[in-house]
């Protein structure tokens, strides 16, 4: 047997249940908020039952944008900007590549892509430690001309 084709099941398209339209309207409203007030927001796609047709409609309407990114923490998180700038598609997976949660974020940049401030501080320290290893004589590492 070859998957569903081997079984006497006809896969028919029952058609979306209209929820894609609801999501698109909400995106529109949030995008307007972002433009006018700079307010960011996000929509949980598991909150509404979406049929495959609804997904297709969502994907078709939003299209593909220029940015694709992947974060590796607690399993992958895949992010892409849709063809509508400011509208991001964020999917969290677990380490078995199963979807944990899926969001549409309407933002300048999804929060999970921004480097957390504390991480930057830690990063600065880490970098200094590495530079010190390269050139133990200089108190700030090996590049006095770049004195901060």
């Amino acid at each position, binding site marked *: 047997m070859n998957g569903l084709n081997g079984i006497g099941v006809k896969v028919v398209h029952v*058609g979306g249940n209209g929820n894609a339209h609801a999501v698109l309207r909400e995106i529109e409203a949030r995008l307007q908020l972002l433009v006018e007030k700079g307010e960011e927001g996000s929509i*949980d796609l598991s*909150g509404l*039952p979406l049929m495959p047709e609804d997904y297709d409609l969502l994907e078709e309407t939003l299209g593909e944008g220029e940015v694709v990114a992947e974060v590796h923490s*607690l399993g992958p998180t895949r992010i892409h900007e849709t063809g509508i700038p400011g509208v991001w598609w964020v999917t969290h997976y677990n380490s078995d590549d199963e979807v944990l949660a899926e969001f549409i974020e309407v933002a300048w940049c999804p929060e999970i892509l921004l480097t957390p401030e504390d*991480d930057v501080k830690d990063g600065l320290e880490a970098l200094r430690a590495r530079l010190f290893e390269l050139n133990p004589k200089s108190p700030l590492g090996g590049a006095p001309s770049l004195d901060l």
Partner: protein
Amino acid sequence: MRDETLLDTLKRRGISRRGFLKFCATTASMLALPPAMAAEVAAALGKVRRPAVIWLSFQECTGCTESLTRAHSPSIESLIFDAISLDYHHTLQAASGHAAEEAREHSMKQDWGNYLLLVDGSIPLKDDGVYSTIAGISNLQMLKDAAAGAAAIVSVGTCAAYGGLPHANPNPTGAVSVSEIIKDKPIINVPGCPPIPAVLTGVLAHYLTFGAIPDLDDLGRPKAFFGESIHDRCYRRPFYDQGKFAKTFDDEGARNGWCLFELGCKGPTTHNACATTKWNGGTSWPVQSGHGCLGCSEPDFWDGGSFYKALSTPISPVTGAAAAAVAIGAAAGVAIGLANRQTKAAAKAAHQKATIADLEK
């Protein structure tokens, strides 16, 4: 480690700040909270201490535990389970016999008043509860003892929540639910036969993050997951409304994905999250796989008549009662008819002829 908050646990496991963000977003989604609540989840995680959990299994089939150990989001789920300290679960723990019972008693003593008690299976009451015992202790006794020191109780599965299968007619063991016995503790019912793993994890996550029990409906179920019926969220609903129904499991209608009402779907009276959360990591759910809902998360679902008869049909055949009623009705009708005839005959007999002379008097 007992005083550790969930945030500490996550940190100790080397989770990055982005990972934490992801954890909070996923948890909020799992709890059916709006995404903006993720920040609140994050704040709460830093405050609540990880609770000890004792899991008691009574008259059950272990299906609930099986379902749960196959929860679909291993990483998040294992984090949640890491975050609790499961001190006693007789199917999952390594210890057995006296050692196991000691572990339970020890944990109860240590966290008296603070632990979370999870129960699956119903409790037999008939004949002093001899039908189910653990280490010589009846389920009833063990439940009462363990409940006394619990902060809250989660009834996992329909048996613990409403009596389930053991409670089905004629209920030979006198099985009852947890809430029939324990009246003075908050009880969260997570019914289902078995319950959806993600729903149980969601309920635990809620308790862990907010340290309080979620909003419950009048049958003690968390509204976030049981607030709407299967039928309300069913993707076959448009067919129901249009009057397009599958008549058999292999006809044209079934192949076209039409509504399963005529095949016995109990979706309209069943509250569960199957239609939205789905099963097996969101792969599918019973109605999507072509079978009607059995109503497994409702009390007495086993006694609701055939699983394959429409919801609007009688549970038991009415022909017997109907035939008897017709017979009695006929007999009574004949009796009344005879009585009427007699009255008539008597009236006739008492009849006197009147003459003109009588009238002129």
